[in-house]
């Protein structure tokens, strides 16, 4: 169910121009290293993508 929902929401976010900001990974409690790798990699990736564009839009009260 989760993978279905995530796959869908990823598509939706892509359509909205917000791709890459949602990621799903299964990590068991025994896979500490994988957890660290995934979280580090994802954090790095999001950091490289720059600040959340939605924040800018919601603070932008005036157009043009």
């Amino acid at each position, binding site marked *: 169910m989760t993978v279905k929902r995530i796959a869908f929401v990823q598509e939706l976010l892509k359509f909205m121009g917000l791709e890459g900001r949602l990621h799903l990974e299964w990590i068991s409690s025994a896979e500490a290293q994988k957890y660290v790798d995934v979280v580090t990699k994802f954090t790095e990736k999001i950091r490289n993508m720059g600040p959340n564009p939605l924040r800018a839009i919601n*603070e*932008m*009260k*005036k*157009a*043009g």
Partner: protein
Amino acid sequence: MTNSIAEFEHDSKAIFVIGSNTTACHPLIASRIIQAKENGAKLIVADPRNIQLARLADLSVNHRLGSDVALLNGMMHVIIQNQWHHPDYIADRCEDFDAFKAVIDMYTPDRVSDITGVAPKDIIRMAELYSQNAPAALLYAMGITQHTTGVDNVKSCCNLAMLCGNVGVKGGGINPLRGQNNVQGACDMGGLPNVFTGYQPVSDPGANKKFSDAWGVELSSTPGLTITDMIEAIDQKKIKAMYIIGENPKLSDPDWNHLNHALKKLEFLLVQDIFLSETAQSADVIFASAALGERDGTFTNTERRCMRARKAQDPVGNTLPDWQIISRLSSAMGYAMDYDSAETIFDEITGLTEKSYGGMTYERLGINGLQWPCPNPDHPGTPYLHKETFARGKGKFHAIEYKDPAELACGEYPFLLTTGRMFAHFHTGTMTRVSRHLDVEQKTGYVEIHPDDAMTIKIKSNDPVLLTSRRGQMEVSARITTDVMPGNLFLPIHFGENPTNILTSSNAFDPLAKIPEFKVGAVRIERLIQ
């Protein structure tokens, strides 16, 4: 409104919205504005708050509360300086231009900027957008009128429209957006102290005779009192009994304390409403009236369109349509009214209001209604006014100087409070707060405060705060938002538990129109320790 709603979408090349939070208060007019925008019209928004429409505007400015005259004068200054005005139109159709220009000449962008807080370049750009995209429609609402300078503000709007030849033009005009669905109709029907239907003055002997003859009684030729005056009169025991129909002054009139004090002095209060409003709760007798959908009748909306409202079901319980209640009361008091239907009344109205309603019948109103003036049965109605000439003949330019609002921020009351509507509720909430969906949207009152100010007084979102004005004190929770400018607060008017009129002043009103200054007042805000 001089013009029609549909024109904004199809005909206007520029739309200037000032003192109107259109998406929240007139959403379907806002819909037209959005559509106009998407069809290529320029949109200019001037409002002390960051309203939603500002996000879509080509240019939006936040001028200081109460600085409308200065802003408009500043725009006109720029227009005249740049020869963007319409000298032919002015020469042909208007008068008193020179005196007006003399005042305008003094409102340089720099000076206006000092008063309004709007950058000179924005003033210039506003002037350009408005004057260089014809026809341009000017829209305003209570943000213009609810001031001590309300009449001045309106006149300034008119000046601007005339200056650019925008009056009497399809897609242009001066368009005050009415606050209720039928406030136009109520005024048309003489719901004012000084006129009969169709603005025929009670003091005009011809009109007075016409109505006296029609109704078989001699009518007074002295104008009555405005609400503001009435409260004073009650206070002075000049008025002892009051009959209130479909209004909730306990929440809508200024200075709650003063009003309550006065209402207590009444010997008899009769309220007629569909809900048990705050005012009805203190009545001696209540007449329960039928609601929309339970009665026939007409409404005349903001674009002067008179439309039929049809009964869909019988009134609930023993409620009656207002016209039947009034008829019975009148009959009981000795003046027999025996109308058999709303249509009979409408026919009497059209017969006595020849110039504007004379050509209307229920049959002609059909689905879409008719816009007055519609003087005879063949007249198609009038989408926009002042087409060839102004109603009064020449369009009069008024030379208007900027005046400060009655209260300014000071050491003791460092914040300026403005009031208004929010999108989920209507007026005093009698009708909307009983809707589950709208209640979910906003359950109770709040005060909007800028994040910088919130930081200064150390409050977080939803923290309770205490508001104090020269009239009274009120507790309310804070909503932190950049929708208001630093130094300003905004309080919605819908919530009886946080009545804005505890804070607003009844002494500050427009000298002519007597409209209270709901839009500016000085207050203090303090954090309430939990």
